Structure formats: C-alpha cells, structure tokens
C-alpha cells in the first residue's frame, strides 16, 4: 500500500465508479480523493517509486516540496469537483473526471520524462470526454479541435524527449533549460498546454463548451500541470517573464467584450496563468514560491467562479451576459459565493489572491523588471474588470433580466461554500499556505503600504466602472462572436482552400485526363501487337521453327567444343 505511487488509488478507483449507484456511488466517489490524499500524506519525505522498463529505470513517483504543492491542491480540486457534480448520472463524466484528476496527480509526481509523457497524454484523453459529454455537434467539433492541440502537445513532448535522451542519455525530469532541439521541443509542448499567446485558442474555445461540471474539472488541471512542468524544467528562463507579461495583458481586452461568461472566465484563466509564468521566468525562490502559491489559490477561486457560472447555466440554461442580470433575487447564495470568488481573484486583502499574487509582484519589483511590473499592475486592474466586476455584475446584478429560477441545488451550494471558505481562510491565514511552499521564505503580504495600495487600485477601478456605466461609455453586452487567433484555422485556412479549389480541380482533371490518355495509348498498342496479324498474335510456321532449332543446335555445338 505504502509503496504505491500517489494518485494510483484514484486512477484505479475511477474505473469502478460505474459499478455503484445512488448514495453508494456518492460515498465511493467522495472516498476516492480522500483515500488517495491520506495515502499521499502517509508517504515519507523524499519518497520515490522506481520501475524497470527495458533499459530504463522509470521513476514513477517522486515526492518533493515542489510536486507536493500541486499534489495537495489537485486532490482538493478532485474532492470539490466530486461534490459539485453529485447530480451527474452520466458514467462517461463520472469516470473521466476523477481519471483526469488522477492523471494530473500522476504527472506532477512523475520523476522521469517517460512516465511524465504517459500521464501528460492521459490528461488529454480523459479530459476531452468532459467536452464531448455535452453531446452536441458543436461540442463534438470543439472537442476535436481541443484534442488536436492536446495531442499535438503530446507529440512535441515525445519528440523532444527522444532527442533529449539521445543527447544526454538521461530521462530524469529535472531542470532542463532551453537550448537544444530536444529541450526546445519539450518547452513548446508545455507552452501549448500552458496556453501561451497564439497557442491559447484551444482554451477559450473548449472550456465554455464543456458541461456545467466539466468546465470546473477542466479549469483545475491541464494548465496548472503545465505551470508545474515549466516550474520544474524551465525555472529562470528569461523569455518566460515577457511571455507571461503578455499573457496577463492581452486576454483582458477580449474579456471586456466577450458575452459568454464562461468564455470570460477562460480569458481570465489565461491572464492568471500569465502571473504564474512570470514567476517561473524570474526564477528566484520568492517568485517560484509565488507561482506555486498562486497556482494553489487560483485553482480554488477559478473553480468557484466556474461553479457559480455552472450553477447559473444549470438553472437558467444560459451564461450569456446579454440574457442575464438580477439573478441575486433568485440565487442569493450562488451570488454571494460568486462575489467571494471575484474578490479572491481580484486580490482583495483578506482573500486568497492577495497573499499569492503579491509574492510574484514583489519578486518582479525586487529584480527590477520595471516594465513587467507596470504591466502586471495594469493586469491586476484588468482582473478587477472582467472577473471582479463583469462576472458577478452582469449575471447577478445590473439590469434585471426578469429570469426567476430556483437557487442552485444543495450539493452545488455545499461545494461552492467550502471553496469560498477556503478562499477566505487562505487570505486570512496565509502562513498555512506559505508553510507548504517549495522554499522557505520570510514574507508578509500585509504591510500597510501594500494593503492600502491594493485597496486603492481596486476601489479606484470600481470608481472607473461606476463612471463608465453611468456615463454610458461602458460597452453594452451584445450577442456576438469575437474573432480571436483561432479564426486563422477555423475560417481563413479553410477559406483559402475553398478559394484555391478551382485550381486544384484543374490540376486534378489534367492529371486524370493525362493518365487516361496514357492508358488508352498502352491499351491500343497492346491490342495492335496481340491482334491475329500482330507481332505476338501470328502463328509460327513449321519452316521457321526448323530453322530456329537448327540455330540453337549449332550454338550448342560451338559452345561444347569451345
């Protein structure tokens, strides 16, 4: 039992979910992450589990301070997701959710690149079913696009690992650093799953099309696993500082005008990943701590926000800002939990985002990244815009849509309640979070200048919102699709192919016609040669045969005596 790798119980256990029904299933599914977590806690520090495979020694499990942060929060996320999804009866989702979580847990504890690759692929394959489970034509196509990106990342990873092992002979999953073809390919694989700019489209494309519960599952694992992988292998890579800064900023503009609130949350997720990537790029003990802490807090408040929007979708059938408003009258608890999530992501003092994001900002300031620091503070105001205000305001307040529905089901409220409580607890008692971070760092987020500065940033942002709303400048929520970079492969490239079709048809018909005429020529020649009067068709005459035999005998005679 104690020699099993972390997450293994959850992995095996998830396949048995369909054997249970009703309350037994609920109890079994809740027990899975709890048992798996207790097993992880029972492992000794520095635990490793090795396996011989052909010529390689695979380190299937390696428990250290970095992997532990992700191990803990992934277990917590599985547990909260199971509660939130207790109404689900679809076996596909019931199996794939925990399996996806187990794959992510397996990946963060993988000590070698081969096991890591296998878990990396398993997260892709298990998660796509959470999108397909919507069972619409639209979700099917989105799932296919999602899978192309995810498997593409897996192929890049595998290719990179092969080159890397060829170069170094080592399969260890430790710091790699960019530079060789192998490590660059691995970096690219991580970049896809971490939704770097111009590789980000799969995220905002697929998460909003998943089921109500599926989106909550998806929000927790894939991208944070990529953050972990980058922190493990590419900490201190300077390019990440600038890539991360761009990631924090550009989704903000898209989020302002996006109508689908789960898509707004997807852009917001992308923006939050940016903060973590900056922390990895700086690469100091403080900034890596910041990234780990931010990943931890982020999984909770982002799950909370996706849960609240999922509850709205569950009850009203839509999460379009243009259709919603005034829902606090029908769903007061959901509204309250959503506001707590919004305050956490906006980093209000006493909420979780405040104690984690400030580590990254302080690290950027300490290392004199002035421009990046300004971008990050700008992005913090941007977070206030799309997640702090837009999500709760347009769903629950603002113009009353007249929609009256029931409050979210009790189990959803319970999941949201626990998550909300955790967001506040982490904000009030940051030491508990700091204690499990990879490095020992003396840090206090609660200095008077920091608290007042952050409050100024947030309240003056609200002031700007009030001003823009009251003066009518704030853009109305409209039913619309906004183009993002995915238009390139969803419209432009197919359009180009359609435009080039006549040329293709011409070339094809030339090829076919040319081929046909060659066939006709060969057939004609064959017919001529084999006809009764043709070369092969003629009947040989006796005198010719006698002559031929005489010639052969003469040749034999000469050869015999020669």
């Amino acid at each position, binding site marked *: 039992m104690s020699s099993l790798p972390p997450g293994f119980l959850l992995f095996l256990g998830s396949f048995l979910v369909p054997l249970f029904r009703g309350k037994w299933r609920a109890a079994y599914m809740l027990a899975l992450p709890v048992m798996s977590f207790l097993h992880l806690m029972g492992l000794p520090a520095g635990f490793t589990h090795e396996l011989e495979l052909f010529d390689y020694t695979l380190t299937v499990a390696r428990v250290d301070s970095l992997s532990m942060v992700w191990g803990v929060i992934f277990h917590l996320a599985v547990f909260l997701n199971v509660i939130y999804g207790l109404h689900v009866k679809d076996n596909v989702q019931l199996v794939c959710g925990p399996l996806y979580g187990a794959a992510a847990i397996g990946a963060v504890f993988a000590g070698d690149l081969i096991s890591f690759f296998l878990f990396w692929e398993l997260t892709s394959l298990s998660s796509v079913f959470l999108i397909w489970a919507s069972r619409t034509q*639209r979700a099917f196509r989105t799932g296919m696009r999602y899978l192309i990106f995810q498997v593409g990342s897996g192929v890049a990873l595998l290719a990179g690992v092969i080159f890397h092992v060829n170069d170094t002979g080592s399969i260890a999953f430790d710091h790699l650093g960019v530079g060789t073809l192998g490590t660059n390919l691995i970096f690219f694989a991580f970049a896809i799953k971490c939704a770097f700019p111009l590789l980000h489209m799969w995220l905002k494309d697929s998460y909003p099309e998943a089921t109500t519960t599926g989106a909550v599952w998806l929000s927790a694992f894939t991208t944070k696993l990529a953050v972990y992988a980058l922190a493990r292998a590419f900490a201190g890579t300077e390019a990440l500082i600038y890539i991360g800064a761009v990631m924090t900023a550009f989704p903000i503009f898209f989020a302002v005008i996006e109508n689908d609130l789960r898509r707004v949350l997807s852009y917001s997720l992308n923006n939050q990943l940016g903060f973590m990537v900056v922390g990895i790029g700086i690469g100091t003990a403080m900034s890596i701590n910041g990234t780990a802490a931010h990943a931890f807090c982020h999984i909770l408040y982002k799950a909370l926000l996706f849960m609240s929007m999922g509850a709205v979708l569950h009850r009203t059938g839509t999460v379009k800002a243009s259709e919603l408003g005034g829902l606090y009258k029908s769903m007061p608890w959901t509204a309250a939990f959503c506001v707590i999530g919004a305050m956490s992501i906006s980093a209000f003092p006493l909420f979780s985002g405040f104690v984690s994001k400030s580590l990254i900002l302080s690290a950027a300031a300490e290392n004199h990244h002035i421009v990046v620091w300004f971008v990050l*503070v700008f992005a913090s*105001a941007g977070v206030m815009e799309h997640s702090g205000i837009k999500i709760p305001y347009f769903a629950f307040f603002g113009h009353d849509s007249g929609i009256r529905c029931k409050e979210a089901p009790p189990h959803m409220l319970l999941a949201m309640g626990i998550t909300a409580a955790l967001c506040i607890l982490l904000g009030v008692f940051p030491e508990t979070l700091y204690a499990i971070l990879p490095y020992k760092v003396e840090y206090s987020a609660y200095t008077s200048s920091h608290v007042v500065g952050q409050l*100024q940033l947030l309240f003056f942002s609200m002031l700007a919102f009030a001003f*823009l709303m009251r003066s009518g*400048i704030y853009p109305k929520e409209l*039913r619309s*699709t906004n183009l993002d970079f995915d238009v390139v492969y969803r419209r432009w490239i197919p359009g180009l192919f359609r435009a080039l079709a006549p040329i293709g048809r011409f070339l094809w018909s030339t090829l076919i016609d040319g081929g046909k005429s060659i066939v006709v020529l060969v057939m004609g020649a064959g017919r001529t040669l084999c006809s009764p009067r043709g070369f092969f068709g003629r009947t040989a005459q006796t005198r010719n045969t006698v002559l031929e035999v005489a010639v052969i005998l003469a040749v034999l005679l000469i050869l015999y005596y020669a």
Partner: protein
Amino acid sequence: MDDEKKTYWLDDPKNVTLLVRVLYGVCGLLFVVGFFTMSDHVHFDWESWPAFYGIYGFLSFTFAVLVGKQLRKVLMRKEDYYDE
C-alpha cells in the same frame, strides 16, 4: 410567484446612487490614508506617491474598457459566425 412582485433594496435607483456615493467616500478616504502609509517598504519611488495605485488603477481600468470597445469594431461578428 410572489417572488416577482417583491421589490428589493437595489431596485430603487436612489439606493444605487447611495452605493455610488459610498464608493466615492471610500475612494476619498483611501486617498487620504495614502498620505500616511505609502512610505514604508516600497520598491519603487513612485509607489510612495499617496495616490499612485489609485490613479494607475483608474487609468488602467478605463484604458482596458476603451481599447476593448474599439476592438469590437474589428473583431465583432454575428453570434453564429462559426456555425455552418
């Protein structure tokens, strides 16, 4: 449902105005408090300006919204743009 007839505190525009005035008050207060607190433990000089974060926040927020609004002119399409 009697729920529909029920009026809520926020339904009255006067109360919304009141909330906005409270917001003005809080912002004013934070501005004043900034004079006393923004000197300890800062990395950059400008962080110690009493209202640096307030002004930068206000401008950032407005900038994000205005740029987003302009982006609509270039990026906005019909809702069923990608549907066949």
